[in-house]
């Protein structure tokens, strides 16, 4: 059917992010973009492609390699009425600028008693799987989500990517926007086909702080974010072959965290597996599990399970990295160990 096909507008996350930023820049002159190589290059990960050409060097500003300065500057510009979208090229570089992020961006609203709004979007690339080693492959979900004062979102597909970006730009609070390299649809980083989905042309929002059930099921709840969602969906398909019906939840936001959504699902399925590409300990998996069991311990038929990155720096060599990463097989195995 031609009509249906022509309505489908499949996009990558990279493209969806750039489109969202462009649309907001067109309607809101306060929005501007800063970061390394986000101008003429269009961003190392493609998510600012086309912006420099359309909006020029004043509103799409390549910066020196000075993250503390330009993120600090974003805070000052935001307090002065602008709405900066700032890129930290890899999340792994947070350590050179975490004070600007966390002691300025995240806290100045509180320090001002709510008088100052700091509407910064800090977008940054996460994730591994392509042998970029220990300083360029991390997720660091919990590193950001643990620290109050910032919202934290992370899309698993292009539809959410656009909607969450527009929500983030319009939000009067700082938002950390994590995008996973392997889901960007950049080709040269591998591409998860399921991240490329229909993206409406018009501007729309996806609410920050709301999880989504991306697959319904009865026997087990699998919770993930970004890459974890895709592993979960693949595992669910494999489980289906074995007659197991898995429900898959995409958290989409880590702060605020939609605990209710997860709890309601586990209440139904009685089993919980949490998938996370971030380091396991003191992380997302622990928080989700604790949130469920502190709400109600009786609904669980077996101990919850986690499939997360082990507590080791990320190795370069492919066999080691692939061994360490979460994957569908590990999720299936986790389920099987639950019921045996």
């Amino acid at each position, binding site marked *: 059917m031609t009509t249906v096909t022509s309505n489908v507008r499949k996009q990558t996350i990279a493209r969806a992010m750039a489109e969202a930023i462009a649309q907001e820049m067109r309607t809101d002159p306060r929005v*501007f973009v800063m970061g390394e190589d986000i101008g003429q290059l269009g961003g190392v990960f493609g998510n600012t492609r086309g912006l420099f050409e359309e909006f020029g060097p*004043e*509103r799409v*500003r390549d*910066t*020196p390699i*000075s*993250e*503390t*300065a*330009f*993120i*600090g*500057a*974003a*805070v*000052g*510009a*935001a*307090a*002065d*009425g*602008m709405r*900066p979208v700032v890129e930290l090229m890899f999340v792994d570089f947070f350590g050179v600028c975490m*004070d*600007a992020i966390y*002691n*300025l961006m995240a806290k*100045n*609203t*509180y*320090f*001002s*008693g*709510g*008088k*100052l*709004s700091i509407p910064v979007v800090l977008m940054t690339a996460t994730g591994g799987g392509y042998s970029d080693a220990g300083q360029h492959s991390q997720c660091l979900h919990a590193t950001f989500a643990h620290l*109050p*004062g910032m*919202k934290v979102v992370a899309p698993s597909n292009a539809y959410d990517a656009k909607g969450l970006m527009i929500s983030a730009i319009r939000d*009067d*609070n700082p938002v950390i926007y994590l995008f996973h390299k392997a889901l960007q649809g950049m080709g040269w980083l591998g591409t998860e086909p399921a991240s490329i989905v229909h993206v409406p042309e018009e501007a729309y929002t996806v609410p920050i702080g709301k999880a989504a059930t991306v697959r319904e099921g009865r026997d087990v709840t699998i919770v993930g974010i970004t890459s974890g969602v895709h592993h979960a969906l693949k595992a669910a398909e494999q489980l289906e072959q074995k007659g197991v019906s898995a429900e898959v939840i995409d958290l989409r936001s880590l702060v605020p965290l939609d605990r209710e959504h997860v709890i309601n699902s586990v209440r139904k399925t009685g089993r919980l597996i949490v998938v996370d590409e971030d380091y396991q300990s003191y992380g997302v998996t622990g928080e989700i599990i604790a949130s469920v069991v502190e709400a109600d311990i009786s609904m669980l038929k077996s101990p919850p399970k986690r499939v997360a990155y082990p507590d080791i720096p990320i190795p370069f060599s492919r066999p080691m990295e692939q061994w360490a990463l979460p994957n569908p097989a590990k999720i299936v195995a986790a389920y099987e160990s639950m019921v045996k």
Partner: protein
Amino acid sequence: MTPTREQKIWMYEHMLVSRYLEEMIEEIYMEGKTPAFNMAAGPIPGEMHLSKGQEPCAVGVCVHLKPFDVVTATHRPHHIAVAKGVDLNKMTAEIFGKATGLSGGRGGHMHIFDPDVNFSCSGIIGQSVGPAVGAALSRKLQKKEGVAVAFLGEGAVNQGAFHEGLNLAAVWKLPVIFVIEDNGWGISVPKTASTAVEHNDIRAQAYGIPGHYVPGNNPLEIFRVAGEAIARARRGEGPSLIEIETLRMAGHFMGDAEQYRPKEELAMLKARDPIVAMRTYLMTVDKMSEAEDQEIVTRARKRAEAAIAFAKESPYPRGEEALEKVFV
């Protein structure tokens, strides 16, 4: 650039307001902290960094600023806040942790935020720089009037944020002025032990921007140098760096016994009080009469007293209000 008599009086008066306010805070701070000094006790708990002796830096710079100009300050912000026109009552209430404070008691004395006059602080060394650069960028992008001034201590100059911010401001030619208050000490560490050069104005060369060193803790000299730097920024000619020799008359924070500080230096503090020097100057050069001085002194003291009274009378926030204002 020389100040008018009115500007000089303005500077003198604002130095006095800051000084009186701090003297009153100093006294109240010690309530409940004697005989045993416990920072957690008394009507003003927590750290207390007094700025006495450094008032010239604040007034000499801020006399050139309007409310729409932006100032970012440090963990030692009172004098600057006073000179920038921060609401004195609400600021004092904030220092007391009261519900009527600038942020309802969430920030305290290291986090004085008054958006009405574009004033903010950070207690993290060097982190006044980025936000000032960003505010200057904002003005440039919005083509809106106004410059930004970042204050920082001489100890802060060795923090990476300083370097990154100055380079960024220079590359983008932003209307921002970096003012280093060189009181010779970063807590117990003298400048000579922490900084590879004698004066930090030379570091301006690393960014191709003008650098100035102002010796003598003299409001008039500061007025001149800051005035030129600010005018330059207003003309769109980019950033400047100013280092001001000043004086920490108190310990790093209250409770600091300053055993590391040479006895001779401590003995000289009173004699080097810049307020005394300014008064003498005004009397000699500007023929300020005793009566006029009394009037100014009284006005300044009354403002400080009123602020303290306001703070004292104000109620505390309720505990659960802590949960509010994390997000707007």
